[in-house]
């Protein structure tokens, strides 16, 4: 009996990587995995790529990554949950990332925080019930000169007030209603 357990032949490794769903996005992810030679040390890079491709990290995806990098699932799950940047839940259609850095805090981000939560009827770190708006809290986006700051759908918006923040969110909600 030949000992094939110690080193798997390359084609079986490829087969292990291919996802049964046939989803083409996995091919994109495979490219990143191959670039890092299926090394477990590249776990964070692979998770970044996966979140970029799929939007969030669902369990199935984490299992796929664990197998491709030959890591225990506990390690992959542990790393994915340790870092704030990785999200295991789908995010809303729009995101409102409020900076809670010191400069923003001193300039009244806490008021915006409260008003926005009140208006959206959900807390920061959650998505509104209709799946339209995700509220995210950031440590510091580094645009302290413009405090208070929020990153609204990827665009930095500075010198905000509670009213101007709510205007942006209301705009998204209105769009949703007219749709």
């Amino acid at each position, binding site marked *: 009996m030949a000992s094939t357990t110690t080193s798997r032949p390359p084609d079986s490794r490829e087969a292990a990587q291919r996802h049964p769903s046939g989803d083409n996005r996995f091919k994109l992810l495979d490219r990143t995995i191959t670039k890092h030679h299926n090394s477990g040390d590249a776990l964070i890079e692979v998770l*970044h790529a996966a979140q970029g491709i799929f939007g969030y990290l669902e369990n199935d995806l984490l299992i796929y990554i664990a197998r491709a990098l030959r890591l225990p699932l506990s390690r992959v799950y542990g*790393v994915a949950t*340790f870092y704030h940047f990785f999200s295991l839940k789908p995010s809303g259609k729009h995101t409102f990332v409020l900076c809670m850095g010191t400069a923003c805090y*001193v300039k009244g981000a806490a008021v915006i925080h409260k008003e926005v939560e009140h208006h959206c009827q959900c807390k920061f770190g959650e998505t509104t019930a209709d799946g339209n708006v995700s509220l995210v809290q*950031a*440590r*510091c*986006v*580094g645009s302290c000169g413009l*405090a208070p700051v929020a990153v609204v759908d990827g665009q930095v918006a500075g010198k905000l007030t509670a009213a101007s923040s709510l205007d942006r969110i209301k705009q998204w909600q209105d769009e949703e209603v007219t749709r």
Partner: protein
Amino acid sequence: MTTEDLHELAEKETDRQRQLRDRILYCAAAGCVSCGSHATRDAIKKALKERNLEKEVEVLGTGCMGLCGEGPLVKISSDGSVYERVDEETGRRIVEEHLCEGRKVGAHLIDTSQPFFSSQQKIVLEHCGKINAESIDEYIAAGGYGALARVVTEMQPQDVIEEIRKSGLRGRGGAGYPTGLKWGIVRKAKSEQKYAVCNADEGDPGAFMDRSVLEGDPHRILEGMAIAGYAVGANQGYIYIRAEYPLAIERLKLAIKQAERLGLLGNRIFESDFNFRIDLRIGAGAFVCGEETALLRSIQGRRGRPRPRPPYPSEVGLWGMPTLINNVETYANVAPIINRGSAWFAGIGTPKSTGTKVFALAGAIRNTGLIEVPMGIPLRNIIFDIGGGTPEGTEFKAAQTGGPSGGCIPAEHLDLPVDYESLATVGSIMGSGGLIVMDSTSNMVEVAKYFMDFCMDESCGKCIPCRVGTVHIYGLLDTISRGKGTTDDLALLEELCVMVKETSLCGLGQSASNPVLSTLKFFRHEYTDLLSKPESFVPSVSPDPASAGPADGPAANDGHDSTTHA
């Protein structure tokens, strides 16, 4: 690539610039971009095209010009005029009036003789706001990679380390460890493989110095790292950068590609035996990864959890190999020291803290932005001359340095010189350079609570003092801020702060109580004013709402918090 090739490139670029009629520089750092500096650029380009000037006048995006609160900023290269709040219309007027008619657009012109500009001394930021951040040619024309050429072709590694040691350069990440000493330790470590790592995980809220340097002058960091790699004997470098800085990541990627193409990174640099490569590692939002041992684990794809030191990373680091870790600003100081000599650098600042420090000025201050000052400058000069003081109608209350690891410095210590030792005497730290000004509207108990909330959330959970201690400190601060604390709570708070400080595993826990201890030291009355009076304290099941003391917060009385610790 040889030294001659480098000079040739520099001359070619200088000639090209000389042939232009003028150059319009717009700030393309994150702050100004979010104020719309790209729209301004397009308007300027369009106006130039209308007048057929697009070939004679170059429009280029630079790194941070400093005055982030007044963006977008635009600078005219020929006479050094700087304009603030340049929207599309103003951009068009600058082309029409300033460039064509020689008339300055008065309403938007910044007075560059004001202390904000004249009191600064720029070494780290010397190229920021002056060169195109995305052009390696411009960096070379400004003398870039000259230091690397000299080091690799003329100097021995020991001489490089000696030069850095004599300059007195200390780690700019906050702790202030002598850089030359650290390089010497890594050099001496016996190993086939060594690494040089740049810590660009700028996690302190309110700090954006490193981001500005990386966005405005990325090649400076690459050059500094390559020199360090040569000195310590490393052939691989890693830059660990926050995922929150997409623009800096993009510029670094481009810079690495450009340097590799010219052979300034890679194999046989300047036709020597020295090989050096740099790769990026993107962080994923964990404050603790700024701690060096946690950072190394994160580079290796693990959770960012610190480990006890020794062994220090300079002996056992990445994959068990000796690893040099320096901050962005530290690496940015390397090339100027090699170019101008250690004696020049040691002459700036104070004898123990040499050189300059970059600060990110923010909060309740008129001129928010990025500044660089010589070490030892009094805090008063930074806040009132350069920063322009607090906004109209408010009074200065405290300056916060060092982020969640630092402390609040009150008005009576405004004449304190800003250097590593002096800041430590008042219970704060130099930190990485965030300087947040608070005015009379800030409630110091709330400020302490804000920072503790941060540390509580960012604690990695490995050691108990930090994981449990921060939660309890936060709970006590919450009780006190709601007007339900007692003198016993205050005593317990102080005891707990000292315990967490002395027994935590890494810098995060060891410094987590600094904001509480320093506010307790200088603003104790704000805490005691909130304590419920002992005689009216009723530790029974029927709390009297009127006895809650001078509470200013929402006094939702449940009567339990204060009895817990009684």
